[in-house]
C-alpha cells in the first residue's frame, strides 16, 4: 500500500508498505529517519516516541496505514537552522546522555511536556517521562536536563 504523510514539515511517500508495518519501520527503513529508535517494539520503552497529529505516540504501535495523511514530527524535526533545540542543548549540558539510545524519545517526550506545562514540578516531569526507559543514567541527569530546558525556554 501507499502511505503519504508529512514528516517534519515535508510531504513524504512510502511505497509498497506491508499492511502489518509500523510507522516506526516506515520512518527508519523507508524514509531513512533513524533518529527514532527501535528497541522494545511493544510500547514499553518510549525510544520511538514521535508526535503524530500533535499527540505523543510510540511509533512502533501505530500501524503504517494509520499514519497515512498524518502530520509526524520526529527528533530530527526539532533543531532549526543547524542549531540544537534548547531541550537537546539541555540534555548535552546536563550530561543526560550516555549510550544515547533512549535520548530521542526522551527529547520528544520532554518537548511535549514543556509545550503543555512550561514549569513542571518534579512529579509532573516523572509522570510525563514515565513511558521512556533509560538503562544508563538513573534518570537524575535527565530530570536535571528537563528542569534546565524549562528554565532556558522560559527565558527565551
Amino acid at each position, binding site marked *: *500500500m501507499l502511505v503519504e504523510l508529512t514528516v517534519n514539515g515535508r510531504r513524504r511517500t512510502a511505497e509498497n508498505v506491508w499492511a502489518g508495518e*509500523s510507522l516506526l519501520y516506515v520512518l527508519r527503513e523507508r524514509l531513512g529517519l533513524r533518529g527514532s529508535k527501535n528497541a522494545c517494539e511493544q510500547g514499553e520503552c518510549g525510544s520511538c516516541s514521535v508526535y503524530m497529529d500533535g*499527540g505523543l505516540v510510540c511509533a*512502533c*504501535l*501505530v*500501524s503504517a496505514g494509520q499514519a497515512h495523511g498524518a502530520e509526524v514530527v520526529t527528533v530530527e524535526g526539532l533543531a532549526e537552522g543547524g542549531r540544537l533545540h534548547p531541550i537537546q542543548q539541555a540534555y548535552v549540558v546536563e550530561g543526560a546522555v550516555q549510550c544515547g539510545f533512549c535520548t530521542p524519545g526522551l527529547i520528544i517526550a520532554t518537548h511535549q511536556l514543556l509545550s503543555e506545562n512550561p514549569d513542571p514540578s518534579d512529579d509532573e516531569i516523572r509522570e510525563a517521562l*514515565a*513511558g521512556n526507559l533509560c538503562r544508563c543514567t538513573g534518570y537524575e541527569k535527565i530530570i536535571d536536563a528537563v528542569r534546565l530546558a524549562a528554565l532556558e525556554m522560559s527565558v527565551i
Partner: protein
Amino acid sequence: MEYLRPRTWSDAVALKTEDPSVVPINGGTDLMVEINFARRRPPALLDLSRLDEMKGWEKRNGSVELGAGVTYTRIIEELSTELPALAIASRTVGSPQIRNRGTVGGNLATASPAGDAHPPLLAAGASVRAESMRGARDIPIGEFFTGPKQNALEPDELIRSVVIPAARGPRQFSKVGTRNAMVIAVVSFALSLDLEERRVGTGIGSAGPTPIEAVEAQAYLEQELEAGGNWDHRRRPAPEVGERFAEMAASAASPIDDVRGAASYRTHALRIMAGRTLGWAWDEVVERGGEGRRQCW
C-alpha cells in the same frame, strides 16, 4: 495481509460481516505488539481509528455512551466527573504515549483479565454496544467476559460504544503493580456506591480467568448500609462492616500464581484494596454530606 480503511462506521460493519476474519485495529497498543513479534498475522486489518462515529461520548438519561474509540487521555480530561473510577483507572494505563492511543473499546476487545478499564465498568454496571449487519445489541458487562482474553462478541460483531451509568455517588479504583507506570495490574479493584438507588458495585481485575464482580460482598454491604441507616444519614459504616466486606470481596476472586504475583498475595492485596476503596468512597460521602442530600453527585 490486507489493510482496510473504512470511511464510515457502517462501511466498517459491512466489511466485518463480509469477512469476520478481519481484525479491527484502533489504538494498536495490543495488536501491534503481536504483529511486531510475528505472533499474529491476520488476513486483514480493519482500521477503525478514522471513524468519527466512535470518537465521541454523549450523556443521555443519566448514562454516558462512550464511543469505543475514545482514548484514555480523553477519558481523564473529559470524564472524571461522570466516570470517576474509569478516569482513575485510565490514569494508571501504560504511559502518556499509550494513553494517547489506547481505547476502552480495544481493552474490551482484547478482554484480558488484567484490563484496567474492566473493574470500573463492572462496578458501574455498564453494557457493551455491539453491532453487525444483523443489528445492534447491548451486552451487559457481567456477561461480556467469557474466559481469559475471550468475550461474548460474535465473529461478525464490532464494539461501537460502552454505555456506562454516570456516577450517583463515589467511585474508586485501586491497582497494585511494581511501578506507577507501564504496569499490567498484579491485582485491581473498583468500587461504586450509588447513593440514589442504594446499590454497591464492585469489579476485580487480574485475580481470575476474567474480571469478576464480587456479588456476595455487594449484597452484604448494601444490606448493612440499609440496616445501619448509613444511606440515609450518610454516616460511615462501622469498621467491622468494612472488614467483612473486604474479606468477602477478596474471597470472590480465584487468583493464580504467575509471573506478576502469587495467588495468596493477590487475595491479601484485594482485601486491603476493597477496605481502602470503601474508606476513600466514604470520605467523599462525608466531605460532600454538608452540600445537601439530593445534590447531583
